[in-house]
C-alpha cells in the first residue's frame, strides 16, 4: 500500500526575535525596515546592530513601500507549492530607502516585454501561512 505524500506548501517564514518587528509590521500592512540612527543607513535584513557601522542605535522606520525593479528571473521550475503558477517572476527590488530585497512581482505578465529594469514598483501584502508577505506590483503612475 502506498500513501501519496501531501502536496508541499509554499515556504512560510518563521520570525526570530530580531526580525519580529518586520513581520509584525507586514501584518499591519506596513513595510518597516531597520535604520541606523548613527550612520543613517537603512539595511536589510534585520540584525541586532548596524552592519555598516556597528551601532546598536537602531530604529524601525516605515518605508514608502516603493522601489524599482533591480533584476529578476522568470522562473519556470516550480518551487514546492508553486506547481500551478509557473512561470512566475522572482524580483530583486531596490527600495527607495536604499536596500535591496527579494520579492515576487504580481499584476504584470511574466514576460520580458512587460518587465523593464528600473520600473517603479509598490508593495502589496499577501497572506502566507500565519504571516503577511510583502510582494510588489507596478506602481500606479503618480
Amino acid at each position: 500500500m502506498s500513501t501519496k505524500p501531501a502536496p508541499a506548501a509554499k515556504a512560510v517564514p518563521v520570525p526570530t526575535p530580531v526580525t519580529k518587528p518586520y513581520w509584525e509590521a507586514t501584518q499591519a500592512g506596513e513595510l518597516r525596515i531597520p535604520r541606523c540612527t548613527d550612520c543613517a543607513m537603512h539595511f536589510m535584513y534585520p540584525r541586532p546592530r548596524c552592519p555598516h557601522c556597528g551601532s546598536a542605535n537602531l530604529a524601525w522606520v516605515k518605508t514608502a513601500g516603493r522601489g524599482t525593479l533591480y533584476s529578476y528571473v522568470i522562473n519556470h521550475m516550480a518551487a514546492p507549492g508553486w506547481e500551478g503558477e509557473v512561470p512566475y517572476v522572482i524580483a530583486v527590488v531596490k527600495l527607495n530607502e536604499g536596500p535591496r530585497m527579494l520579492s515576487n512581482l504580481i499584476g504584470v505578465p511574466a514576460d520580458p516585454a512587460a518587465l523593464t529594469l528600473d520600473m517603479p514598483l509598490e508593495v502589496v501584502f499577501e497572506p502566507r501561512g500565519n504571516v503577511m508577505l510583502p510582494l510588489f506590483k507596478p506602481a500606479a503612475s503618480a
Partner: protein
Amino acid sequence: MKRMTIAIAGAAETDLGALPHLSELDLRADAAYRALADAGLTLADVDGITSATESPIDVAHYLGITPAWYDGTSVGGCSFLVHVRHAAAAIRAGLCTTVLVLHGESGRSQVGRPPRVRPASSMLGQFELPYGAFAPPNMFTLPVMRYLKDTGTTHEQLAEVVVAQSHWAAGNPRASRNKLLTVQDVMASPLIAYPFHKLECCVVTDGGGALVITSADRARNLRNAKRPVYLLGSGEACDSPMVSLMDDMTSSKGFKRASKQAFEESGIKHADVDHLMIYDAFAHLPLYGLEDLGFVGRGEAGAFIQAGHTRPGGKLPLNTNGGGILYTHTGMYGMFAILEAVRQLRGEAYKQVDGVKTSVVQGVGGMFTAAATLVLSNQEP
C-alpha cells in the same frame, strides 16, 4: 628562509554520470584510493583529510584512518580550493605532511546524500525562500538581468559562453554534453529561469575526485616526480549568503578578493596565465570571472569570448573540460575544475593546450557567497 613549496602529488577523478551503485561516501572512498594510487602512496601515508558537507571524520573512519589534521570547511562548490589552501598552510605549519582533499557527490542519483537543510527561521528562509526562489537555477541567476543591462552584454554573448566551451567538450566521452553547439542551439533549449536556457545551466551528475597534497620535497620522491604540479598561491573570500544582498550584483567581491590574494602570493601577472578555469554552474560566471579577475575590462567579457579568445587555439584557453555546464557538475564542481588544471599542467588533458605552464582556477560557492582561487604551475617556484 625559503618558504616550503607545496605540490599536488596525486590526482584522480572517479567515473562520472549516473552512478546509483555508489553513495557519497563510496564516491569519496573511490576517489581517495585512485588519487593515492596515482601518487604511489597508501592510506598509511595519509595524516590529513578534508571533506565538505559530510564530516571529514566520517570519511576518515569510513576509510579506516585516524588523521592528525582535518578540515570540514563546507562553503559550497569552491570548498575544495579552500581545502587545498588550508592543507598547504597546515603542512607548512607542521601539523601534517600528506593531505587527502576529497570530493564525492551523488547529485544525480541522490544516494547516501545528506539533506541540505534551510530552516524557515534562517535569513534565507525568511527573506528569499518564500518567494519561490529555492534552487541555484532561480537564485544564482538573479543578478544577470542587471549585469546585462549595466554592461551592455547581450543574451547571445551569454549563450556564446556555452558555445565556446562546447569546442573543448566536443567528442570527449567523459563529458555529459559533448556535442558542438551553436548560439541557436543554446537559445532554442527550454527556458529554465529567463534569461537562462537549459544549456546555460550546468548538468547534474554523480562523481568524485581527490588530490594528494604534500611538500614539493616529498613529491619529488613519489610516483609523479616527473610531472609535478606546484601550488604557487591561493586565496579565499566571501560575499553575501543571500544573492539579493551581494555588495554589487554585477561584480563578485569574492572573485576580486580571492584572486587578488592568489595573484599577489604567487607573484604572477595576467600575462603569465596560460590556462584558466572559472567555475561555471551557469553561463554568466565566466563573464564575471574574466572581468573580476582582471583578464578583461568591465563589460568586455562577452565580446572577448565571442571573439574566440577562450576557444581551442585562442589566447586564453578557458574551461577546457567543457566546464560544469558541459563536462560534469555534481553540485559542488570545484574539484573537477582543479582536476582539469592538473591534467593540463601534466600534459594529459583530453583537449591539451600546448605549453601550459601556469593555470589559474577560480571557484565559487553558494550563490556568489564564497570564492577561492588557486594558482598552479608545473614550474617550481
